[in-house]
């Protein structure tokens, strides 16, 4: 008789493990299956280790500019291996933490590759077969390969880097984020394909560490999902730092040399140029892991690589659910976590609402940082809103000047008719830690009035958030 669970989750990434813990809190007998690492890409090969790398780069940058602050630092240098080691250490520590949290919540961890054999029908639970994996060793106390049963099966298998035909990553000269995160030595030159969050973060990191960096973006704007004005300001800063940026351009061919790659880049005007670099990072997005899970056989509806759900995590097959990257964009850890909680609470029969995807913040940890939530100015206009736009520059903020960070902008977009905060966009120091103020406000359905009445502490960067709102209504003080 196989082990039977109320809830079995495939994938222990941020979506999967958070869902598992919430599931256990709700009293479900819960198991989570993974084949490689607790915490998923986010914790092991994504969000977290890159932040560790970027922190090293940031401190390196400050040390190089110590004199600006009246300090002296001589022989400033770095040890690539030590930087990588620190980054891996951060992941390792958090990975162990996830294992502990799951154990504490009495969630069973099953190690291996899972495939769904059948969904629950009537009183008969669904069945999942877990095959042994050679990708990674099982954590202590994990259950192994075998057949498991569960009333509810949640697919939370995440995503992997998209590969462009002809430019397939080879782990040597053509990297994905995996290789880019653990360089044996810092490359002298680098070509980054794609200017989304992943591409830009690596471009920023390697540029700070001294590499010649070129970013190639197909669309006319870098950071294509961000507000055009913010992306434009960021671009200027990157270019000032020496990053070469080609927008409206496409890598059409890549030739590999013995220790370099030569890419043919075609610009929109039809002109093409050859760029040679030591490494090429392919960061052209991610695709959901929907294969070999038995989804097709069960008849789970999939549309363009994404499992179709009803917004509460339910697929068209009762008893089978999907959350996170496999359930569609935005492919972000915090979206997966939230979606997972909505899914499991729906299973429990709690009163849930589909997530409002218009209120999911996005953060890019390059130098300068970028953070945003809601509609861009262009999107808001496209949707027919008559908008009021507020702007406040870092140069007008005391704390920013004291920090030595006078470059940046906070932009807010309001619906002129109702005063609804439609979007907020920021570029500059620490903005990734500021954005949640606007996210809370939007979630509480603020209008400009409540934001104006809110007291922001002085002296902080957050005062700029207040000023930006005031500016939208012609009441700004410090510009």
């Amino acid at each position, binding site marked *: 008789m196989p082990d039977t669970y109320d809830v079995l989750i495939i994938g222990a990434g941020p979506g999967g493990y958070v869902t598992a813990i919430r599931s256990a809190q709700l009293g479900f007998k819960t198991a989570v299956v993974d084949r490689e690492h607790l915490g998923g890409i986010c914790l092991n090969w994504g969000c977290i280790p890159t932040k560790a790398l970027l922190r090293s780069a940031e401190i390196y940058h400050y040390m190089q500019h110590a004199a600006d602050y009246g300090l002296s630092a001589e022989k400033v240098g770095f040890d690539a291996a030590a930087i990588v080691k620190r980054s891996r250490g951060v992941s390792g520590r958090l990975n162990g933490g996830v294992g502990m949290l799951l154990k504490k919540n009495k969630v069973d961890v099953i190690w291996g590759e899972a495939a769904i054999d059948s969904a629950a029908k009537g009183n008969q639970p669904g069945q999942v077969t877990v095959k042994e994996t050679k990708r990674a060793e099982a954590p202590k106390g994990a259950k192994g390969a075998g057949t498991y049963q569960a009333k509810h099966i949640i697919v939370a298998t995440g995503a992997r880097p998209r590969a462009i035909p002809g430019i397939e990553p080879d782990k040597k000269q053509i990297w994905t984020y995996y290789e880019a995160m653990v360089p044996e030595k810092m490359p002298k030159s680098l070509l980054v394909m794609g200017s989304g969050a992943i591409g830009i973060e690596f471009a920023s990191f390697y540029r700070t560490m001294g590499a010649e960096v070129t970013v190639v973006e197909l669309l006319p704007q870098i950071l294509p999902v961000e507000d055009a004005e913010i992306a434009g300001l960021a671009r200027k800063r990157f270019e000032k730092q020496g990053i070469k940026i080609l927008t409206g351009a496409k890598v059409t061919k890549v030739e590999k040399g013995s220790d370099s790659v030569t890419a043919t880049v075609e610009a929109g005007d039809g002109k093409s140029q050859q760029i040679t670099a030591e490494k090429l990072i392919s960061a052209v997005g991610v695709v959901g892991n929907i294969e070999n899970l038995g989804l097709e056989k069960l008849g789970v509806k999939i549309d363009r690589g994404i499992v179709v759900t009803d917004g509460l995590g339910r697929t068209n097959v009762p008893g089978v659910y999907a959350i996170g990257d496999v359930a569609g964009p935005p492919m972000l850890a915090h979206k997966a976590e939230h979606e997972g909680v909505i899914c499991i609470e729906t299973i429990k029969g709690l009163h849930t609402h589909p997530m409002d995807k218009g209120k999911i913040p996005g953060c890019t940890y390059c130098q300068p940082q970028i953070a945003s939530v809601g509609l861009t100015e262009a999107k808001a206009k496209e949707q027919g809103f008559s908008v009021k736009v507020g702007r406040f520059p870092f140069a007008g903020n005391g704390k920013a000047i004291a920090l030595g960070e006078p470059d940046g902008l906070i932009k807010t977009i309001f619906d002129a*008719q109702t005063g609804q905060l439609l979007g907020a966009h920021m570029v500059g120091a620490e903005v990734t830690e500021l954005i949640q103020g606007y996210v809370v406000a939007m979630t509480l*359905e603020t209008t400009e009035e409540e934001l104006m009445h809110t007291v922001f502490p002085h002296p902080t960067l957050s005062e700029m958030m207040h000023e930006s709102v005031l500016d939208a209504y012609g009441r700004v003080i410090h510009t």
Partner: protein
Amino acid sequence: MPINVLMPALSPTMEKGNLAKWLKKEGDAVKSGDVLAEIETDKATMEVEAIDEGVLAKILVPEGTADVPVNDLIALIAAEGEDPGSVQAPSGGAAQAEAPTEAPKAEASPAAQNTTPGGGHMSYERVNEAPGGAKPAAKGNEAAQAAPAGGRVFASPLARRIAKQEGIDLSGIQGSGPHGRVIERDVRAAAANGTGKAAAPKAAEAPAGTVAAAPPLAPKAAAAGAAGLSLDQVRGFYDKGAYEEVPLDGMRKTIAKRLTEAMQVAPHFYLTVDCELDALMKLREQLNSSAGKDKDGKPLFKLSVNDFVIKAMGLALMRVPAANAVWAEDRILRFNNAEVGVAVAIDGGLFTPVIRKADQKTLSTISNEMKDFAARARAKKLKPEEYQGGVTSVSNLGMFGIKHFTAVINPPQSTILAVGAGEKRVVVKGDAPAVVQVMTCTLSCDHRVLDGALGAELIAAFKSLIENPMGMLV
């Protein structure tokens, strides 16, 4: 200290009422539960009850006074031990009747006194309470518990602003946010459904106490108007597994939406007549038997009673031009031709194709057009322009043996004729019983367009044509 008796609010949106009658006179002893006065609004009459014991010392608003604002001081009760003769109305007008602040907590604001059930100085009984509607909405309860004095409606800032802009009474909206908080989507839904519209948009700005602490009966009813019970509420009435859930198709949604709207927006009244059919049946037989044959030997037409009904409605509309009209927001559209819709039942719904110029077409043309319409309606092959428009419709349930019914007007039309079965009945003719074939027809009229007399004129013209069918041939 005297006890203030204030003008109560019957509903959250009520702003003033008429003081119809005092049931106690100055000097009468009153005890808790005694009815002091009757208050009228345009909707109902209610009673003002005393909660405290004492003597009705002073009547400040005489009976028969119209439009007394809510919370105005209407009388003073001398408490036990007080000299009723010494009780004075406070100066500065009734509206500022807030008691001196000797015991500020207990006195609270006039609004709170007035509408906190059992907690204030008086209560009132509703005489026209809706059946089964006594249960206050959950939100009202929560709000009242959370803020017994204020009766605050919890709503997001954005919801409040949109409600204000749209003139929607927030207290009439069931919030779907955390703890029943009214959020943007609730207000947007209410705006889209046209529910929760404040009779007086000021309601949201009125003293908080009058909004939510009053039994939220009226707002509940308003909210229930278009939206009805929620899915979960309806499910809650039945055992799980006792039913199967059928998703709505577009036709069902349209029928539900348009006809709900019709009943809410168009004030219906109904006129019923019996039409004698003997002459019509005879004529029909003659016409059908004289029909020519096509090359396959089939008759070129076969008239039904309904074809006569359509033609008669068309002619009747032309004879009563004022009834050949529809309501259009701030005006009436009057037509030059008679357009008669005909309800055709199909699997899972119905269509109402329209016979254009029904007054001018021959019976055989109408008959053949209807056969084509009916066939294509069943195949769902009608073009929108074929079932849109029309001034009136005919709905015939005679074939199901229905004797009499009333139909819901199909917007934007202004009337609909519900046709029952033709059957033999004994009627009195010249003081003697006679057997005649009779068909009962009921005309539903939109009172915005047709008054009773005009509707009567229309159905009389129709009846006359049916009973003298030769008139339809020329």
